[in-house]
Each structure stands twice: as structure tokens, then as C-alpha cells.
């Protein structure tokens, strides 16, 4: 692949794909030229994969993998530094009595609390992710969104979770969305960018696929389903469509990008269904925290309870895991 011809392309995008972001019309043509998604078919496939039976060793492996993929999240107006520090402690020692329990992938907070999280997690491998860009609605000016991003990055966040402008997307102003993701990506510097599509507001699977490609074209390192503030949040069929997008992106560019379902995943059983989808839709290459995350707050405790059940051979109850 030759170097990019378009000034708007990321440096390592293949020329043929860089060209689709040349102007508004070619971007629109490309996104609308993507294969459609048949609702009945994708939902059927998701339901079918949900029946894989995962037990014993496979289950223990799946639980530990899921724990290592959790972005432990607190995104409340009432968040305090104390709450964030407690969450950081939990991230470092999810199950204090079990030293072999893996740590989570990251702690995810609002930008003004990123510094607290960074300090609390200093020296550990747990990342700090920060939602920025006027999260969750994104209804603010570009300048504010970029300032929000910089705030997070300057505080030391390793990962930035941005929201896309759903209004612009639904109006068909794809170039506007594309440029905004590019601008935020530039503001991220070294930090990884997760692009939240808020699939519940995009309404159709066709839109989910287009928004996924838009985010990938613009250089998003991860595509993420939801803010967790809108219902429906993550669903299995939506995640299927996004996993297909990163798999197809890899086929066309050789680049590996990640997927993060967020919101509403509360049980081990659900988390395992997502892992099966990752395994069978994208491929086992994606079964790593580098490329797949769960955005969740309450999921971790259920994973820990189930982990103990698997290891000890009996159920221990909610008072045996910490509440933070």
C-alpha cells in the first residue's frame, strides 16, 4: 500500500480507504455502500451463539479473561475523589483474598477525576480511562470537547472515551463527525481513543455499521457501544455488528482495532456470551484486553462471585466480595 494521498487520512490507512474521506460525497457513498445488516439474521445469530455451553475450565478461563477486560466505571454526578480512590483500590485487588485473581484493565472516570485515579493507580498496570467530549450527550462546542479531552490527557489518562455527535450523524453530516473524531484523536496524543457510538440512539443496525466504519476511518482505537446513560445500551446483536466491522477493517488494512460494549452487562453469563461472540465473530485474536473491554460497574462483582464458586465449588454470597 502506498502512502496516503488525502490530507485527512491517518498515516497508516491504506490509500484506497484514505480516499473515501476525500470529501463529504465520497464518504457518504462509501458508508452507504457498506453491506446492509439484516435485523432478523443478526439477532438470530446472536441468539444462537448465546447457547454455547461454557463450563468448568472453559468457564474459569472465561471469567478470568472477562475480569481482565473490565473497565471499572463510575460515571455519576455524585462521584467524589474518595469514591474514585475506592474504585482504584478495587481495580488493583478485585478479590483481596485471592492473589491469583487478575486485575481489571482500567478505571473509567470523568475528566475532572482522572488525576485522582492516576495518582491512586500510579505504578500499576491498570489504566485510567476518562470519558470526555461533553459526555454523555456531546452537545457542546468543538472547542469545549477538545478542552475536555485535553483536561483528561493532561491529568494523565491513558485512554479517552469520546462520544460522537449523534445529531450530526443522524442528519447525515458524516464529514463533520469524521473530522471531530480526528480532532479528538489528535488531542489525545499518546492516549488511546475509544469512540462511543451510542448505538441506542442510532436506532438501526445499518447505522451502527456505518458509524463503526466512520470511527475506524477517523482513527479510533476502539469502538464502543454506549455511554450507559441511554437505553438500550450494549446488546449482543449490536456488538456482533461492531465485531464484524473491526474484523472487516483488519481484513482490509491489517490493523487491529478494539470493541467495547458498555452499559447493562451485569452478569457473568452475559459476559461469557460476549466472549463467545468475540471468539466466533471477530476471532480469537480479539480475546485480549488490548482489543476487547467491558464497560461495567456491577459486572465485576458477579464475575468475582462466580470465580469463587468455580474455585471453591460452592457459592459464597454477595457479602464475600467488596462493595465500592
Amino acid at each position, binding site marked *: 500500500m502506498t502512502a496516503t494521498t488525502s490530507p485527512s487520512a491517518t498515516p497508516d490507512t491504506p490509500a484506497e480507504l484514505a480516499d473515501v474521506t476525500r470529501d463529504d460525497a465520497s464518504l457518504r457513498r462509501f458508508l452507504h455502500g457498506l453491506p446492509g445488516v439484516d435485523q432478523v439474521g443478526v439477532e438470530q445469530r446472536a441468539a444462537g451463539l448465546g447457547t454455547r455451553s461454557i463450563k468448568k475450565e472453559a468457564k474459569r*478461563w472465561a471469567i478470568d479473561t472477562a475480569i481482565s477486560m473490565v473497565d471499572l466505571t463510575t460515571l455519576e454526578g455524585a462521584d467524589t475523589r474518595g469514591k474514585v480512590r475506592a474504585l482504584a483500590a478495587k481495580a488493583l485487588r478485585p478479590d483481596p483474598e485471592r492473589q491469583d485473581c487478575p486485575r481489571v484493565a482500567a478505571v473509567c472516570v470523568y475528566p475532572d477525576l482522572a488525576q485522582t485515579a492516576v495518582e491512586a493507580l500510579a505504578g500499576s498496570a491498570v489504566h485510567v480511562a476518562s470519558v470526555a467530549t461533553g459526555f454523555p450527550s456531546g452537545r457542546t462546542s468543538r472547542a469545549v470537547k477538545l478542552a475536555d479531552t485535553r483536561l483528561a490527557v493532561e491529568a494523565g489518562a491513558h485512554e479517552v472515551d469520546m462520544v460522537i455527535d449523534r445529531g450530526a450523524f443522524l442528519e447525515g453530516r458524516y464529514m463533520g463527525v469524521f473530522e471531530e473524531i480526528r480532532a479528538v484523536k489528535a488531542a489525545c496524543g499518546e492516549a488511546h481513543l475509544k469512540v462511543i457510538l451510542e448505538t441506542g440512539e442510532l436506532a438501526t443496525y445499518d447505522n451502527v455499521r456505518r458509524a463503526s466504519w466512520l470511527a475506524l476511518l477517523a482513527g479510533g482505537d476502539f469502538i464502543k457501544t454506549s455511554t450507559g446513560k441511554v437505553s438500550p445500551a450494549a446488546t449482543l446483536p449490536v456488538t456482533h455488528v461492531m465485531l464484524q466491522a473491526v474484523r472487516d477493517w483488519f481484513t482490509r488494512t491489517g490493523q487491529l482495532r478494539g470493541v467495547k460494549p458498555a452499559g447493562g452487562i451485569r452478569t457473568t453469563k452475559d459476559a461469557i456470551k460476549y466472549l463467545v461472540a468475540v471468539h466466533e465473530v471477530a476471532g480469537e485474536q480479539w480475546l485480549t484486553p488490548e482489543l476487547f473491554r467491558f464497560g461495567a460497574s456491577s459486572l465485576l462483582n458477579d464475575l468475582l462471585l462466580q470465580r469463587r464458586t468455580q474455585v471453591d465449588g460452592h457459592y459464597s454470597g454477595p457479602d464475600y466480595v467488596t462493595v465500592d
Partner: protein
Amino acid sequence: MGIFDYAPAPESRAIANLKDHYKPFVDGEFVDGSGEPLKTVNPATEEILAEVGTASASDVDTAVRAARRAYDTVWSKMPGAERAKYLFRIARLIQERSRELAVLESLDNGKSIKESRDSDVPTAAAHFFYHAGWADKLGYAGYGPDPKPLGVAGQVIPWNFPLLMLAWKIAPALATGNTVVLKPAETTPLTALVFADICRQAELPPGVVNILPGAGDIGASIVEHPDVDKIAFTGSTEVGKLIQRTVAGTRKKLTLELGGKAANVVFDDAPLDQAVEGIVNGIFFNQGHVCCAGSRLLVQESVAEEVLDKLRHRVSTLRLGDPLDKNTDIGAINSAEQLAKIHGLVESGDAEGAQRWTSPCPVPDRGFFFAPTVFSEVHQSMRIAREEIFGPVLSVLTFRTPEEAVTKANNTPYGLSAGIWTEKGSRILWMANQLRAGVVWANTFNRFDPAAPFGGYQESGFGREGGRTGLEAYLSV
């Protein structure tokens, strides 16, 4: 498979209540047939499952006489609403004993428990529920105010969906007031004999349903029997032709559901990921042992490479192995003979220059298994594009225009089913009108419902099963 190895989750075979010995069911009793007993084999392990008593020509005569007696004295005289009660009872008993039936079916046939549990058995029950609803409404089916049954129906069914094909045959026959003599396939008689037990449990009057295990000669005796009024057969085109010759010139009514070589047509604007699912479901469902399987993929040249790449990726995730494992997607080939036939046709594909790709999935050492296989560079002139393989083998052909797709899809002696994949509604309607196939699926494949008539064109047979249309085959109209 790699870092995420699913744990085996086998269903307990004890649920099948497998017995050492099974007997024919005649006139409400399990009787000693006077034929040579046959041994039925678990195709996944090659172990003998059970010994099954078979019928002889004289047993056929006894069964037909019992069916005639039941027809004359009880069943044809009974009000439709009364017959409906028996059908509803049978439907509920199939549901109650669904796990037993599903496990037994997987043991005897080799199909995955996922399919017998989630597809075969529930659909079999659904056929009895659906037809129970018709039993007291035949006057409103559009065949006059008081359509009459035909009499004794002789039915011969194949080994690919043993219980489901039984339901497709017996439910409409009973609903319309006919009595039945049915022969299950030689390799898969067990669920039919458990069904016989269900008939007893439902207190169905003796003789209304008779089940005679045996080989082709018993099927022939049923077809030839002078006191049989109606023949319904599902199976190979070859045997279908033989039956048609035998029945010609007699007063017997006949319906045939025979082979197929269905085209699954994928246009460049199709929802490709779901099309790939549909292709997989079309040909790898039930190990490809489906007469309406989408065994010929016709894909538009502009997306052919992309579809093939996605397809190979998807097919390599299919899990082949123990049919009783709940994670198994593809079970065993039903018999050594069928496996040999598949091997023969696949070799002809190699010899004629098609490109063979086989899934890298592990294949068990024992049992009759065949790894999912996709042939590309297939052309109409090759045997693998023309003959029914009846196994997990897909032939991929390409086309350039919609007209070419129609021409190629219709260029087959068969005509049971077809699939169309496109986001364009007008093209779906246009194609569906052009395709000579009994069932045309749009953006899906292998979906069945008792309300939807099923049947073929040309060498795929004639007559319909299911729906209002299907009743006609069992009524004097």
C-alpha cells in the same frame, strides 16, 4: 480450537430410555414382525444401539387391514372436533417427552442435539398442534362444505428428519380422517416407535396409526398393497420414480417429496454477513442432509471473493463432533453408505477441476463424519453442480446479472427451494416469480412452519405438505 476451548457439554444418553429391542406397531400393539430383525447403529460411534423387529409383506397386509378397520369403524366416522382432541393430545405428549425424543433422535440419526432439541422436535409438535386446529374446520378449507378423507394412507419417510417427517405425514392424514401405515427409514426407526408409544399413551384407537420398520421391500409392499388409497413418499428421486410407475394406472393418490439442488442466490447489495449465515444454515444445517438444502451458492461476481473469504472464516468456526454435545454444530453422517456417496461426489469435484476448501476443524476418529467443505470455481457442467450430494458440501458458482442468476438457478432437474439475498424488495419479488422452486426464501434460509406449504417442481416431486394446501393431498376434492 485455540485459547478458548469450550468444555464438552454432553446431554445424558440415559434420557433416551434406549431399549435393547423395539417392535413394529400394528393395530395398537407392539407385535413381533415376521421380517429379519435389523440393527440400528449410532453413526457417531458406530455402536449398535438396538435391535429392531421388522415387518414382512404379510405384516403389511395385517397392518393395512387394521388401518382399514379403524378407518371404517371409528376414525372416518368421528366428528372432527373429536379427532382434534387426539391430535392435541399427541402434540402435548411430544412436548412432554421432547427431551427423550431429541436425545434418541440424535443417537439414532447422528444429528446435533442442538438441532433435534431446538428444531426437529418442537416443529414436529407444532405440526400436530397446527393440524389439530384444522380437524374440525375442514369445511372451511376451501374444498367444499364437507370434504371426505381418502381412506388408508401408506407413508414412507426418509432418515434425515425421522420424527419431523413422520409428523409432516401423520398429522395431516389424521386431521383429515385418514388412517395410516407408515414405514420409517431403515437406519432411523427408533423415534417412530417411541411415537407409536405416544399414540398408545394418547389412547388413539387401535389401527389408526401403524408403524412398520423395514427396508425398501416393505415400502414397496405398502405402495403395492391394493387396499391402500393414498401414498405419500419423501426420499430419493430414484425411488420416487419407481413408486410413480407402480402407482400409475391405479386409483391411488400420490404425493412425492424428492431430491433437490437448491440455488441460494446472493446479490452484491445483500446484507453480506447475514447472507453468510444463511449460506451456512442453508447447506450445513443437519449435515447437509436436507432435501431443500441450499447446496448451490450463486454469488454475484462483484462480491464473490468477499463472500468466499467471509464464508471460509465462518465455516471454520463450525464445531463438528459428538452429536450429544450441546456445543456441536455439525454431527455425524447418517450411515457409512451415505458417507461413501459424499466422498465419491467430492472426488468428482476434484477431478473436474473445482477448488476444494475443507474446514480445518478436528474430525473424530470413530464414527461417520465429514468436515464442512466448500467448492469454488464450480461450473454448471460439473457433477457437483448438478447432482444432490446430501452432505455438508457446498458448490459455489458465480453470475453477473439477475437474468443469468435466474437462468442458472432454474437450470436443474430439481425445484424444491431457492434463496434470494438482496436489500432490494422489488428484486426479491421479481426473482421469486422467476424461480421454479416450491419454496423461495428471501434473506433467510431453511425456515419451516406448519402453516407454510412445502413441495417441489420437476424431479423434486409434486404435492404440498403443510398449510391449507397440504390438506388437499389427504382429501377427496
